[in-house]
Protein backbone atom coordinates (compact mmCIF):
# COMPACT_ATOMS: atom_id res chain seq x y z
CA UNK A 1 0.00 0.00 0.00
CA UNK A 2 1.32 3.40 -0.90
CA UNK A 3 0.15 6.55 0.75
CA UNK A 4 -0.11 10.03 -0.52
CA UNK A 5 -0.29 12.92 1.82
CA UNK A 6 -1.34 16.50 1.96
CA UNK A 7 -0.01 18.65 4.67
CA UNK A 8 -0.95 21.91 6.23
CA UNK A 9 0.33 23.77 9.21
CA UNK A 10 -1.54 25.05 12.17
CA UNK A 11 0.00 26.89 15.03
CA UNK A 12 3.34 25.31 14.56
CA UNK A 13 2.13 21.73 14.66
CA UNK A 14 2.61 19.37 11.81
CA UNK A 15 -0.74 17.96 10.78
CA UNK A 16 -0.94 15.25 8.20
CA UNK A 17 -4.02 14.25 6.27
CA UNK A 18 -3.72 11.02 4.43
CA UNK A 19 -5.46 9.44 1.51
CA UNK A 20 -4.51 6.25 -0.18
CA UNK A 21 -3.31 6.29 -3.74
CA UNK A 22 -3.48 3.58 -6.33
CA UNK A 23 -0.59 1.34 -5.62
CA UNK A 24 0.05 -0.07 -9.07
CA UNK A 25 2.48 1.54 -11.47
CA UNK A 26 4.91 2.39 -8.72
CA UNK A 27 8.56 1.52 -8.84
CA UNK A 28 11.16 0.93 -6.22
CA UNK A 29 13.65 3.74 -6.29
CA UNK A 30 15.77 2.17 -3.57
CA UNK A 31 16.23 -1.53 -3.08
CA UNK A 32 18.30 -2.91 -0.22
CA UNK A 33 19.05 -6.61 0.13
CA UNK A 34 20.72 -8.20 3.14
CA UNK A 35 22.92 -5.23 3.82
CA UNK A 36 25.59 -5.69 6.49
CA UNK A 37 28.19 -3.24 7.70
CA UNK A 38 30.70 -4.15 10.38
CA UNK A 39 33.26 -1.93 12.05
CA UNK A 40 35.59 -4.47 13.55
CA UNK A 41 33.56 -6.48 16.01
CA UNK A 42 30.69 -3.99 15.97
CA UNK A 43 27.80 -4.79 13.62
CA UNK A 44 26.44 -1.35 12.75
CA UNK A 45 23.98 -2.58 10.13
CA UNK A 46 22.82 -6.14 10.65
CA UNK A 47 21.37 -7.81 7.55
CA UNK A 48 18.66 -5.32 6.62
CA UNK A 49 16.44 -5.46 3.54
CA UNK A 50 13.81 -2.96 2.43
CA UNK A 51 12.48 -1.09 -0.56
CA UNK A 52 11.55 2.54 -1.00
CA UNK A 53 8.84 3.43 -3.51
CA UNK A 54 9.31 6.29 -5.87
CA UNK A 55 7.75 9.52 -4.66
CA UNK A 56 7.21 8.49 -1.06
CA UNK A 57 8.62 9.95 2.11
CA UNK A 58 10.42 7.10 3.76
CA UNK A 59 11.36 7.53 7.39
CA UNK A 60 14.19 5.81 9.16
CA UNK A 61 13.49 6.05 12.83
CA UNK A 62 15.69 4.93 15.67
CA UNK A 63 17.87 6.08 18.54
CA UNK A 64 21.31 7.53 17.92
CA UNK A 65 23.77 4.82 17.06
CA UNK A 66 21.11 2.51 15.65
CA UNK A 67 22.74 2.42 12.22
CA UNK A 68 20.72 5.07 10.38
CA UNK A 69 23.62 7.18 9.22
CA UNK A 70 25.70 4.14 8.33
CA UNK A 71 22.90 2.89 6.06
CA UNK A 72 22.64 6.30 4.40
CA UNK A 73 26.39 6.44 3.92
CA UNK A 74 26.27 3.10 2.11
CA UNK A 75 23.34 4.17 -0.08
CA UNK A 76 25.21 7.39 -0.92
CA UNK A 77 28.39 5.54 -1.90
CA UNK A 78 30.36 7.05 0.98
CA UNK A 79 30.95 3.63 2.54
CA UNK A 80 31.21 0.15 1.18
CA UNK A 81 28.98 -2.48 2.80
CA UNK A 82 30.61 -5.53 4.34
CA UNK A 83 28.10 -7.67 2.44
CA UNK A 84 24.73 -7.42 0.72
CA UNK A 85 23.69 -5.16 -2.11
CA UNK A 86 21.70 -2.01 -2.74
CA UNK A 87 20.46 -0.15 -5.78
CA UNK A 88 19.34 3.45 -6.08
CA UNK A 89 17.43 4.64 -9.15
CA UNK A 90 18.29 1.28 -10.67
CA UNK A 91 22.04 1.72 -10.20
CA UNK A 92 24.25 -0.42 -8.02
CA UNK A 93 25.73 1.60 -5.17
CA UNK A 94 29.06 -0.22 -5.36
CA UNK A 95 29.59 -0.68 -9.09
CA UNK A 96 27.82 2.38 -10.54
CA UNK A 97 28.87 5.06 -8.09
CA UNK A 98 28.81 8.00 -10.47
CA UNK A 99 25.24 7.34 -11.64
CA UNK A 100 24.13 6.82 -8.06
CA UNK A 101 25.77 10.08 -7.02
CA UNK A 102 24.01 11.94 -9.82
CA UNK A 103 20.67 10.52 -8.70
CA UNK A 104 20.79 11.66 -5.11
CA UNK A 105 20.89 14.81 -3.07
CA UNK A 106 22.09 14.84 0.49
CA UNK A 107 21.60 16.91 3.57
CA UNK A 108 24.00 15.54 6.11
CA UNK A 109 23.54 15.35 9.82
CA UNK A 110 26.73 17.38 10.26
CA UNK A 111 27.16 20.64 8.35
CA UNK A 112 28.90 20.31 5.00
CA UNK A 113 29.15 23.84 3.63
CA UNK A 114 32.27 25.82 2.92
CA UNK A 115 31.65 28.48 5.52
CA UNK A 116 34.41 30.73 4.17
CA UNK A 117 32.56 31.10 0.88
CA UNK A 118 29.27 32.86 0.18
CA UNK A 119 25.99 31.01 -0.32
CA UNK A 120 26.20 31.78 -4.01
CA UNK A 121 29.73 30.42 -4.26
CA UNK A 122 28.74 27.23 -2.46
CA UNK A 123 25.90 26.68 -4.91
CA UNK A 124 28.03 27.55 -7.94
CA UNK A 125 30.58 25.00 -6.81
CA UNK A 126 27.85 22.39 -6.51
CA UNK A 127 26.39 23.23 -9.93
CA UNK A 128 29.81 23.00 -11.52
CA UNK A 129 30.65 19.71 -9.88
CA UNK A 130 27.32 18.20 -10.96
CA UNK A 131 27.92 19.40 -14.50
CA UNK A 132 24.86 21.63 -14.73
CA UNK A 133 25.16 23.97 -17.74
CA UNK A 134 25.96 27.50 -16.66
CA UNK A 135 22.76 29.15 -17.90
CA UNK A 136 20.55 26.47 -16.36
CA UNK A 137 22.51 26.65 -13.11
CA UNK A 138 22.02 30.41 -12.84
CA UNK A 139 18.25 30.07 -12.98
CA UNK A 140 18.12 27.07 -10.65
CA UNK A 141 20.35 28.73 -8.09
CA UNK A 142 17.99 31.68 -7.98
CA UNK A 143 14.99 29.34 -7.72
CA UNK A 144 16.32 27.29 -4.84
CA UNK A 145 17.64 30.31 -2.97
CA UNK A 146 14.27 32.03 -3.24
CA UNK A 147 12.54 28.85 -2.16
CA UNK A 148 14.50 28.69 1.09
CA UNK A 149 14.33 32.45 1.55
CA UNK A 150 18.05 33.14 1.27
CA UNK A 151 18.15 35.05 -2.01
CA UNK A 152 18.71 38.37 -0.25
CA UNK A 153 21.60 36.93 1.74
CA UNK A 154 23.24 35.14 -1.18
CA UNK A 155 26.39 37.23 -1.08
CA UNK A 156 27.03 36.72 2.63
CA UNK A 157 29.72 34.39 3.81
CA UNK A 158 28.14 31.27 5.24
CA UNK A 159 30.03 31.70 8.52
CA UNK A 160 27.67 34.62 9.21
CA UNK A 161 24.60 32.38 8.81
CA UNK A 162 22.62 30.93 11.70
CA UNK A 163 22.24 27.17 12.07
CA UNK A 164 18.79 27.21 10.51
CA UNK A 165 19.93 29.28 7.54
CA UNK A 166 22.82 26.93 6.93
CA UNK A 167 20.53 23.95 6.96
CA UNK A 168 18.16 25.67 4.52
CA UNK A 169 21.08 26.42 2.27
CA UNK A 170 22.12 22.76 2.41
CA UNK A 171 18.64 21.69 1.42
CA UNK A 172 18.73 24.17 -1.46
CA UNK A 173 22.07 22.77 -2.51
CA UNK A 174 20.87 19.18 -2.26
CA UNK A 175 18.07 19.99 -4.73
CA UNK A 176 20.12 21.95 -7.23
CA UNK A 177 20.90 19.04 -9.52
CA UNK A 178 17.30 17.73 -9.45
CA UNK A 179 18.02 14.47 -7.68
CA UNK A 180 15.57 11.55 -7.78
CA UNK A 181 16.09 10.91 -4.09
CA UNK A 182 16.78 13.45 -1.40
CA UNK A 183 18.42 12.08 1.74
CA UNK A 184 17.79 14.06 4.87
CA UNK A 185 19.88 12.77 7.72
CA UNK A 186 18.46 14.35 10.87
CA UNK A 187 17.72 17.53 8.90
CA UNK A 188 16.58 19.53 11.88
CA UNK A 189 18.94 18.25 14.56
CA UNK A 190 19.82 20.98 17.03
CA UNK A 191 17.46 23.56 15.53
CA UNK A 192 14.80 25.45 17.41
CA UNK A 193 11.14 24.43 16.87
CA UNK A 194 10.33 27.45 14.72
CA UNK A 195 13.21 26.76 12.37
CA UNK A 196 12.31 23.08 12.28
CA UNK A 197 8.84 23.97 11.11
CA UNK A 198 10.21 26.34 8.53
CA UNK A 199 12.46 23.66 7.11
CA UNK A 200 9.65 21.13 7.05
CA UNK A 201 7.52 23.61 5.14
CA UNK A 202 10.15 23.69 2.45
CA UNK A 203 10.56 19.94 2.30
CA UNK A 204 6.83 19.28 1.99
CA UNK A 205 6.34 22.10 -0.46
CA UNK A 206 9.02 20.55 -2.56
CA UNK A 207 7.43 17.14 -2.40
CA UNK A 208 4.25 18.64 -3.79
CA UNK A 209 6.07 20.37 -6.63
CA UNK A 210 8.34 17.58 -7.81
CA UNK A 211 7.95 13.85 -7.75
CA UNK A 212 10.97 13.49 -5.51
CA UNK A 213 11.54 10.64 -3.10
CA UNK A 214 12.58 11.68 0.36
CA UNK A 215 14.58 9.38 2.58
CA UNK A 216 14.54 10.76 6.07
CA UNK A 217 16.22 9.77 9.28
CA UNK A 218 15.20 11.28 12.54
CA UNK A 219 14.72 10.59 16.17
CA UNK A 220 12.05 13.27 16.50
CA UNK A 221 8.72 11.50 16.58
CA UNK A 222 6.63 14.33 15.18
CA UNK A 223 8.92 14.53 12.18
CA UNK A 224 8.62 10.82 11.52
CA UNK A 225 4.83 11.23 11.43
CA UNK A 226 5.19 13.05 8.14
CA UNK A 227 6.56 9.93 6.46
CA UNK A 228 4.39 7.67 4.30
CA UNK A 229 6.18 4.65 5.68
CA UNK A 230 8.55 4.25 8.56
CA UNK A 231 11.23 1.69 9.22
CA UNK A 232 12.09 1.44 12.89
CA UNK A 233 15.71 0.51 13.31
CA UNK A 234 17.38 -0.59 16.51
CA UNK A 235 20.84 -2.07 17.01
CA UNK A 236 21.31 -2.31 13.25
CA UNK A 237 18.13 -4.28 12.59
CA UNK A 238 14.78 -3.19 11.18
CA UNK A 239 12.27 -4.16 13.84
CA UNK A 240 9.19 -2.86 12.01
CA UNK A 241 8.30 -1.28 8.68
CA UNK A 242 4.86 0.15 8.02
CA UNK A 243 2.77 3.28 7.72
CA UNK A 244 2.71 5.42 10.88
CA UNK A 245 -0.98 4.51 11.41
CA UNK A 246 -0.41 0.81 11.09
CA UNK A 247 2.54 1.02 13.45
CA UNK A 248 0.48 2.86 16.00
CA UNK A 249 -2.31 0.31 15.71
CA UNK A 250 0.21 -2.28 16.84
CA UNK A 251 0.32 -0.58 20.21
CA UNK A 252 -3.28 -1.72 20.63
CA UNK A 253 -5.58 1.22 21.22
CA UNK A 254 -5.26 4.14 23.60
CA UNK A 255 -2.50 4.75 26.07
CA UNK A 256 -3.58 5.46 29.59
CA UNK A 257 -1.22 7.03 32.10
CA UNK A 258 -2.00 6.78 35.76
CA UNK A 259 -0.62 8.38 38.91
CA UNK A 260 -1.57 6.60 42.10
CA UNK A 261 -0.92 6.55 45.83
CA UNK A 262 0.78 3.17 45.58
CA UNK A 263 1.98 2.07 42.17
CA UNK A 264 2.86 -1.46 43.24
CA UNK A 265 -0.61 -2.12 44.62
CA UNK A 266 -2.21 -0.57 41.55
CA UNK A 267 -0.26 -2.89 39.26
CA UNK A 268 -1.47 -5.88 41.29
CA UNK A 269 -5.07 -4.72 41.11
CA UNK A 270 -4.93 -4.07 37.37
CA UNK A 271 -3.51 -7.53 36.83
CA UNK A 272 -6.22 -9.24 38.89
CA UNK A 273 -9.32 -7.28 37.99
CA UNK A 274 -8.64 -6.18 34.43
CA UNK A 275 -6.02 -8.65 33.16
CA UNK A 276 -3.79 -5.70 32.28
CA UNK A 277 0.01 -5.60 32.60
CA UNK A 278 0.78 -2.00 33.46
CA UNK A 279 4.35 -0.70 33.16
CA UNK A 280 6.14 1.99 35.07
CA UNK A 281 8.04 4.96 33.70
CA UNK A 282 9.04 8.42 34.90
CA UNK A 283 5.45 9.70 34.57
CA UNK A 284 3.86 6.90 36.58
CA UNK A 285 2.04 3.81 35.32
CA UNK A 286 0.92 3.30 31.77
CA UNK A 287 -0.85 0.66 29.72
CA UNK A 288 -2.83 0.30 26.54
CA UNK A 289 -6.51 -0.51 26.21
CA UNK A 290 -8.68 -0.90 23.12
CA UNK A 291 -11.16 1.80 24.07
CA UNK A 292 -9.96 4.35 26.58
CA UNK A 293 -13.16 6.36 26.92
CA UNK A 294 -15.09 3.31 28.08
CA UNK A 295 -12.33 1.97 30.26
CA UNK A 296 -11.67 5.04 32.40
CA UNK A 297 -15.02 4.99 34.28
CA UNK A 298 -14.51 1.29 35.07
CA UNK A 299 -11.05 2.05 36.33
CA UNK A 300 -12.09 4.92 38.56
CA UNK A 301 -14.92 2.96 40.18
CA UNK A 302 -13.05 -0.33 40.44
CA UNK A 303 -9.61 0.58 41.77
CA UNK A 304 -9.11 0.50 45.52
CA UNK A 305 -5.79 2.35 45.40
CA UNK A 306 -6.17 6.10 45.46
CA UNK A 307 -5.76 7.71 42.01
CA UNK A 308 -4.05 11.10 41.75
CA UNK A 309 -4.48 11.60 38.03
CA UNK A 310 -5.50 9.83 34.88
CA UNK A 311 -4.68 10.83 31.34
CA UNK A 312 -5.45 9.19 28.04
CA UNK A 313 -3.89 9.76 24.65
CA UNK A 314 -3.68 8.23 21.21
CA UNK A 315 -0.55 6.16 20.76
CA UNK A 316 2.52 7.91 19.37
CA UNK A 317 5.51 6.49 17.59
CA UNK A 318 7.29 6.72 20.94
CA UNK A 319 4.86 4.12 22.23
CA UNK A 320 5.49 2.01 19.15
CA UNK A 321 9.20 2.09 19.73
CA UNK A 322 8.70 1.30 23.39
CA UNK A 323 6.43 -1.61 22.54
CA UNK A 324 8.87 -3.04 20.01
CA UNK A 325 12.12 -2.60 21.87
CA UNK A 326 11.17 -2.12 25.50
CA UNK A 327 13.09 1.15 25.58
CA UNK A 328 12.38 4.80 25.03
CA UNK A 329 13.79 6.29 21.86
CA UNK A 330 15.01 9.47 23.46
CA UNK A 331 18.74 9.90 23.38
CA UNK A 332 19.23 10.09 27.13
CA UNK A 333 17.39 6.81 27.53
CA UNK A 334 19.94 5.12 25.32
CA UNK A 335 22.19 4.25 28.21
CA UNK A 336 25.81 3.38 28.22
CA UNK A 337 25.64 0.59 25.64
CA UNK A 338 24.25 2.91 23.00
CA UNK A 339 26.75 5.60 23.83
CA UNK A 340 29.61 3.18 23.43
CA UNK A 341 28.17 1.91 20.19
CA UNK A 342 27.90 5.41 18.85
CA UNK A 343 31.41 6.23 19.88
CA UNK A 344 32.80 3.11 18.23
CA UNK A 345 30.96 3.93 15.01
CA UNK A 346 32.28 7.45 14.99
CA UNK A 347 35.82 6.22 15.44
CA UNK A 348 35.41 3.70 12.68
CA UNK A 349 33.41 5.90 10.36
CA UNK A 350 35.45 8.99 10.97
CA UNK A 351 32.51 11.27 11.15
CA UNK A 352 33.46 14.81 12.11
CA UNK A 353 31.98 15.39 15.49
CA UNK A 354 33.85 18.22 17.04
CA UNK A 355 32.90 21.40 15.27
CA UNK A 356 29.17 21.68 15.50
CA UNK A 357 28.03 25.14 14.77
Amino acid at each position, binding site marked *: MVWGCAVHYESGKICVLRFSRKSNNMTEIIKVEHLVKKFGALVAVDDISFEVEEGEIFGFLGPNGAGKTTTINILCTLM*KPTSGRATLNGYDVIRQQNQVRHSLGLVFQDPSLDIRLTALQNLKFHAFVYNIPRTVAKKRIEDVLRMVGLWDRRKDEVCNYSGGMRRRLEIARGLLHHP*RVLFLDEPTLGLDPQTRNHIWNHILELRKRQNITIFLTTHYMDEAEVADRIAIIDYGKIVALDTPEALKRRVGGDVITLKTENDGKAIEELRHHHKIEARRDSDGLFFEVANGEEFIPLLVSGLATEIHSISMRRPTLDDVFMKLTGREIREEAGGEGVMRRQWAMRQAGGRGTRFHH
Partner: protein
Amino acid sequence: MGNASGGGQRDKVPPLSNLRVIYIIWYRDLLRFWRDRARLITSFAQPFLFLVIIGTGLSSGIVFLGGASDYDYIQFMYPGIIGMVVLFTSIMAGVSIVWDREFGFLKEVLVAPISRSAVAIGKALGGATIATAQGLVMLVFIPFVGVSISAAQVFLLIPLMFIFAFSLTSMGILIASRIKTMESFQVVIQLLLFPLFFLSPALFPVERLPSWLGIPVRLNPVSYGIDSLRQVVLTPSQGMPSFGITIAGHTMSIVEDVAILALFGVIMASLAVWSFRNQE
Protein backbone atom coordinates in the same frame (compact mmCIF):
# COMPACT_ATOMS: atom_id res chain seq x y z
CA MET B 1 11.87 0.88 -14.62
CA GLY B 2 10.33 3.51 -16.83
CA ASN B 3 6.71 4.48 -16.29
CA ALA B 4 4.33 7.38 -16.37
CA SER B 5 5.94 9.09 -13.41
CA GLY B 6 9.25 9.07 -15.22
CA GLY B 7 10.99 6.72 -12.84
CA GLY B 8 14.39 5.25 -13.13
CA GLN B 9 17.58 6.17 -14.89
CA ARG B 10 16.26 9.41 -16.26
CA ASP B 11 19.30 11.51 -15.65
CA LYS B 12 22.06 10.44 -17.93
CA VAL B 13 24.22 13.41 -17.13
CA PRO B 14 27.79 12.80 -18.25
CA PRO B 15 30.23 13.09 -15.39
CA LEU B 16 32.38 16.15 -15.30
CA SER B 17 35.63 15.79 -17.19
CA ASN B 18 38.65 15.31 -14.96
CA LEU B 19 40.30 18.51 -16.16
CA ARG B 20 37.27 20.51 -15.11
CA VAL B 21 37.25 18.75 -11.72
CA ILE B 22 40.90 19.64 -11.22
CA TYR B 23 40.10 23.20 -12.24
CA ILE B 24 37.20 23.69 -9.83
CA ILE B 25 39.05 22.19 -6.86
CA TRP B 26 42.09 24.34 -7.65
CA TYR B 27 39.88 27.39 -8.14
CA ARG B 28 38.13 26.93 -4.79
CA ASP B 29 41.46 26.75 -2.97
CA LEU B 30 42.62 29.95 -4.63
CA LEU B 31 39.31 31.64 -3.95
CA ARG B 32 39.60 30.78 -0.27
CA PHE B 33 43.19 31.94 -0.21
CA TRP B 34 42.22 35.22 -1.80
CA ARG B 35 39.35 35.77 0.62
CA ASP B 36 41.69 35.09 3.52
CA ARG B 37 44.18 37.84 2.85
CA ALA B 38 45.05 38.10 6.52
CA ARG B 39 46.95 34.86 6.05
CA LEU B 40 49.14 36.56 3.48
CA ILE B 41 50.13 39.23 5.97
CA THR B 42 50.73 36.89 8.90
CA SER B 43 52.78 34.63 6.66
CA PHE B 44 55.46 37.31 6.75
CA ALA B 45 56.02 36.98 10.46
CA GLN B 46 57.90 33.71 10.65
CA PRO B 47 60.38 34.25 7.78
CA PHE B 48 60.93 37.78 9.02
CA LEU B 49 61.87 36.49 12.47
CA PHE B 50 64.19 33.92 10.99
CA LEU B 51 65.93 36.33 8.65
CA VAL B 52 66.19 39.28 10.94
CA ILE B 53 66.65 37.74 14.36
CA ILE B 54 68.43 34.46 13.66
CA GLY B 55 70.24 35.82 10.62
CA THR B 56 71.47 38.95 12.34
CA GLY B 57 72.16 37.18 15.60
CA LEU B 58 74.26 34.47 14.05
CA SER B 59 76.05 36.87 11.71
CA SER B 60 77.19 38.97 14.68
CA GLY B 61 78.78 35.99 16.41
CA ILE B 62 80.35 34.03 13.59
CA VAL B 63 82.16 34.73 10.35
CA PHE B 64 80.38 32.78 7.63
CA LEU B 65 82.64 30.09 6.11
CA GLY B 66 85.66 31.83 7.62
CA GLY B 67 85.10 34.78 5.30
CA ALA B 68 85.82 32.63 2.23
CA SER B 69 82.58 33.57 0.45
CA ASP B 70 81.06 36.42 -1.55
CA TYR B 71 77.97 36.08 0.60
CA ASP B 72 77.27 36.70 4.24
CA TYR B 73 75.15 34.42 6.38
CA ILE B 74 71.86 36.25 5.90
CA GLN B 75 72.31 36.06 2.15
CA PHE B 76 73.16 32.36 2.40
CA MET B 77 70.13 31.70 4.55
CA TYR B 78 67.70 33.71 2.40
CA PRO B 79 66.94 31.00 -0.23
CA GLY B 80 66.60 28.56 2.66
CA ILE B 81 63.91 30.80 4.18
CA ILE B 82 62.10 30.99 0.82
CA GLY B 83 62.24 27.19 0.83
CA MET B 84 60.92 27.13 4.39
CA VAL B 85 57.92 29.23 3.38
CA VAL B 86 57.20 26.92 0.44
CA LEU B 87 57.57 23.87 2.67
CA PHE B 88 55.30 25.15 5.45
CA THR B 89 52.66 26.51 3.08
CA SER B 90 52.63 23.29 1.06
CA ILE B 91 51.89 21.19 4.10
CA MET B 92 48.94 23.53 4.70
CA ALA B 93 47.26 21.92 1.66
CA GLY B 94 47.03 18.77 3.76
CA VAL B 95 45.72 20.82 6.66
CA SER B 96 43.01 22.20 4.41
CA ILE B 97 41.78 18.67 3.66
CA VAL B 98 41.64 17.78 7.34
CA TRP B 99 39.90 21.10 7.92
CA ASP B 100 37.36 20.32 5.18
CA ARG B 101 36.75 17.00 6.85
CA GLU B 102 36.19 18.60 10.25
CA PHE B 103 33.87 21.23 8.82
CA GLY B 104 32.11 18.65 6.69
CA PHE B 105 32.76 20.15 3.27
CA LEU B 106 34.83 17.14 2.26
CA LYS B 107 31.64 15.07 2.28
CA GLU B 108 30.10 17.36 -0.31
CA VAL B 109 33.13 16.67 -2.50
CA LEU B 110 33.29 12.93 -1.81
CA VAL B 111 29.62 12.34 -2.56
CA ALA B 112 29.72 14.31 -5.82
CA PRO B 113 29.82 12.40 -9.11
CA ILE B 114 33.42 13.32 -9.84
CA SER B 115 36.69 11.44 -9.94
CA ARG B 116 38.44 11.41 -6.60
CA SER B 117 41.80 11.15 -8.33
CA ALA B 118 41.05 14.44 -10.02
CA VAL B 119 40.05 15.94 -6.69
CA ALA B 120 43.39 14.91 -5.17
CA ILE B 121 45.34 16.33 -8.12
CA GLY B 122 43.32 19.55 -8.01
CA LYS B 123 44.06 19.86 -4.31
CA ALA B 124 47.79 19.28 -4.88
CA LEU B 125 47.90 21.86 -7.67
CA GLY B 126 45.90 24.37 -5.63
CA GLY B 127 48.21 23.98 -2.66
CA ALA B 128 51.26 24.21 -4.89
CA THR B 129 49.99 27.39 -6.51
CA ILE B 130 49.40 29.03 -3.16
CA ALA B 131 52.80 27.91 -1.84
CA THR B 132 54.50 29.30 -4.94
CA ALA B 133 52.68 32.59 -4.50
CA GLN B 134 53.76 32.74 -0.86
CA GLY B 135 57.32 31.94 -1.87
CA LEU B 136 57.27 34.75 -4.42
CA VAL B 137 56.04 37.17 -1.78
CA MET B 138 59.30 36.50 0.09
CA LEU B 139 61.10 38.36 -2.67
CA VAL B 140 60.10 41.59 -0.91
CA PHE B 141 63.00 40.87 1.46
CA ILE B 142 65.54 41.29 -1.35
CA PRO B 143 66.51 44.86 -0.44
CA PHE B 144 66.99 43.91 3.21
CA VAL B 145 69.08 40.86 2.35
CA GLY B 146 71.07 42.70 -0.28
CA VAL B 147 71.22 40.17 -3.09
CA SER B 148 70.55 41.12 -6.68
CA ILE B 149 68.10 39.02 -8.64
CA SER B 150 67.28 39.57 -12.31
CA ALA B 151 63.86 39.08 -13.86
CA ALA B 152 65.19 35.95 -15.56
CA GLN B 153 66.12 34.47 -12.17
CA VAL B 154 62.64 35.22 -10.85
CA PHE B 155 61.08 33.45 -13.84
CA LEU B 156 63.28 30.46 -13.15
CA LEU B 157 62.30 30.46 -9.47
CA ILE B 158 58.58 30.14 -10.25
CA PRO B 159 58.67 26.65 -11.86
CA LEU B 160 61.25 25.48 -9.34
CA MET B 161 59.12 26.51 -6.40
CA PHE B 162 56.08 24.99 -8.08
CA ILE B 163 57.65 21.56 -8.57
CA PHE B 164 59.05 21.69 -5.04
CA ALA B 165 55.63 22.69 -3.67
CA PHE B 166 53.71 20.13 -5.73
CA SER B 167 55.74 17.24 -4.32
CA LEU B 168 55.22 18.53 -0.78
CA THR B 169 51.48 19.22 -1.14
CA SER B 170 51.10 15.69 -2.49
CA MET B 171 52.81 14.40 0.62
CA GLY B 172 50.48 16.53 2.77
CA ILE B 173 47.42 15.14 0.98
CA LEU B 174 48.68 11.60 1.36
CA ILE B 175 48.90 12.10 5.11
CA ALA B 176 45.62 14.01 5.32
CA SER B 177 43.65 11.34 3.47
CA ARG B 178 44.48 8.88 6.24
CA ILE B 179 44.04 11.19 9.20
CA LYS B 180 40.65 12.05 10.55
CA THR B 181 41.23 14.80 13.07
CA MET B 182 43.10 18.06 13.27
CA GLU B 183 44.86 17.00 16.49
CA SER B 184 46.45 13.90 15.03
CA PHE B 185 47.41 15.76 11.87
CA GLN B 186 49.23 18.34 13.97
CA VAL B 187 51.15 15.61 15.76
CA VAL B 188 52.25 14.05 12.48
CA ILE B 189 53.22 17.42 11.10
CA GLN B 190 55.28 18.28 14.16
CA LEU B 191 57.11 14.98 13.83
CA LEU B 192 57.67 15.51 10.13
CA LEU B 193 57.89 19.20 9.36
CA PHE B 194 60.73 20.20 11.63
CA PRO B 195 63.03 17.30 10.71
CA LEU B 196 62.34 18.00 7.05
CA PHE B 197 63.28 21.63 7.58
CA PHE B 198 66.24 21.26 9.92
CA LEU B 199 67.70 18.28 8.08
CA SER B 200 68.09 20.39 4.96
CA PRO B 201 70.66 22.92 3.81
CA ALA B 202 68.23 25.75 4.66
CA LEU B 203 70.32 27.08 7.54
CA PHE B 204 73.81 25.62 6.92
CA PRO B 205 75.92 24.34 4.02
CA VAL B 206 75.97 20.57 3.58
CA GLU B 207 79.50 20.07 2.41
CA ARG B 208 81.29 20.18 5.75
CA LEU B 209 78.73 18.27 7.82
CA PRO B 210 79.81 15.11 9.67
CA SER B 211 78.36 12.03 8.00
CA TRP B 212 75.78 11.29 10.74
CA LEU B 213 74.15 14.58 9.81
CA GLY B 214 75.22 14.74 6.16
CA ILE B 215 73.55 11.46 5.21
CA PRO B 216 70.02 12.27 6.43
CA VAL B 217 70.32 15.71 4.85
CA ARG B 218 71.20 14.11 1.51
CA LEU B 219 68.30 11.65 1.85
CA ASN B 220 65.82 14.46 2.51
CA PRO B 221 64.00 15.49 -0.70
CA VAL B 222 63.47 18.97 0.75
CA SER B 223 67.27 19.48 0.56
CA TYR B 224 67.15 19.37 -3.22
CA GLY B 225 64.31 21.85 -3.39
CA ILE B 226 66.21 24.32 -1.25
CA ASP B 227 69.44 23.60 -3.10
CA SER B 228 67.84 24.42 -6.44
CA LEU B 229 66.44 27.70 -5.10
CA ARG B 230 69.83 28.64 -3.66
CA GLN B 231 71.62 27.87 -6.89
CA VAL B 232 69.33 30.29 -8.69
CA VAL B 233 69.44 33.08 -6.11
CA LEU B 234 73.15 32.91 -5.21
CA THR B 235 75.78 32.68 -7.92
CA PRO B 236 79.22 32.58 -6.25
CA SER B 237 82.01 34.00 -8.36
CA GLN B 238 84.92 31.88 -9.65
CA GLY B 239 87.12 30.38 -6.97
CA MET B 240 84.61 30.90 -4.18
CA PRO B 241 82.99 27.81 -2.60
CA SER B 242 79.66 26.81 -4.13
CA PHE B 243 76.92 25.75 -1.73
CA GLY B 244 75.58 22.85 -3.81
CA ILE B 245 74.89 19.42 -2.35
CA THR B 246 77.71 17.03 -3.15
CA ILE B 247 77.14 13.31 -3.53
CA ALA B 248 80.32 11.20 -3.85
CA GLY B 249 82.30 14.20 -4.99
CA HIS B 250 79.73 15.28 -7.60
CA THR B 251 78.02 18.62 -7.06
CA MET B 252 74.32 18.55 -7.95
CA SER B 253 73.21 20.85 -10.74
CA ILE B 254 69.80 22.54 -10.82
CA VAL B 255 68.59 20.03 -13.40
CA GLU B 256 69.61 17.11 -11.22
CA ASP B 257 67.92 18.71 -8.19
CA VAL B 258 64.74 19.11 -10.22
CA ALA B 259 64.92 15.51 -11.45
CA ILE B 260 65.05 14.24 -7.86
CA LEU B 261 62.18 16.54 -6.83
CA ALA B 262 60.10 15.51 -9.82
CA LEU B 263 60.62 11.83 -9.05
CA PHE B 264 59.69 12.41 -5.42
CA GLY B 265 56.66 14.44 -6.58
CA VAL B 266 55.41 11.73 -8.92
CA ILE B 267 55.71 9.07 -6.22
CA MET B 268 53.97 11.24 -3.62
CA ALA B 269 51.21 12.31 -6.02
CA SER B 270 50.54 8.70 -7.04
CA LEU B 271 50.35 7.60 -3.42
CA ALA B 272 48.15 10.59 -2.56
CA VAL B 273 45.74 9.79 -5.40
CA TRP B 274 45.61 6.13 -4.44
CA SER B 275 45.06 6.92 -0.78
CA PHE B 276 42.46 9.61 -1.45
CA ARG B 277 40.47 7.29 -3.72
CA ASN B 278 40.34 4.54 -1.13
CA GLN B 279 39.29 6.52 1.91
CA GLU B 280 35.88 6.16 3.43
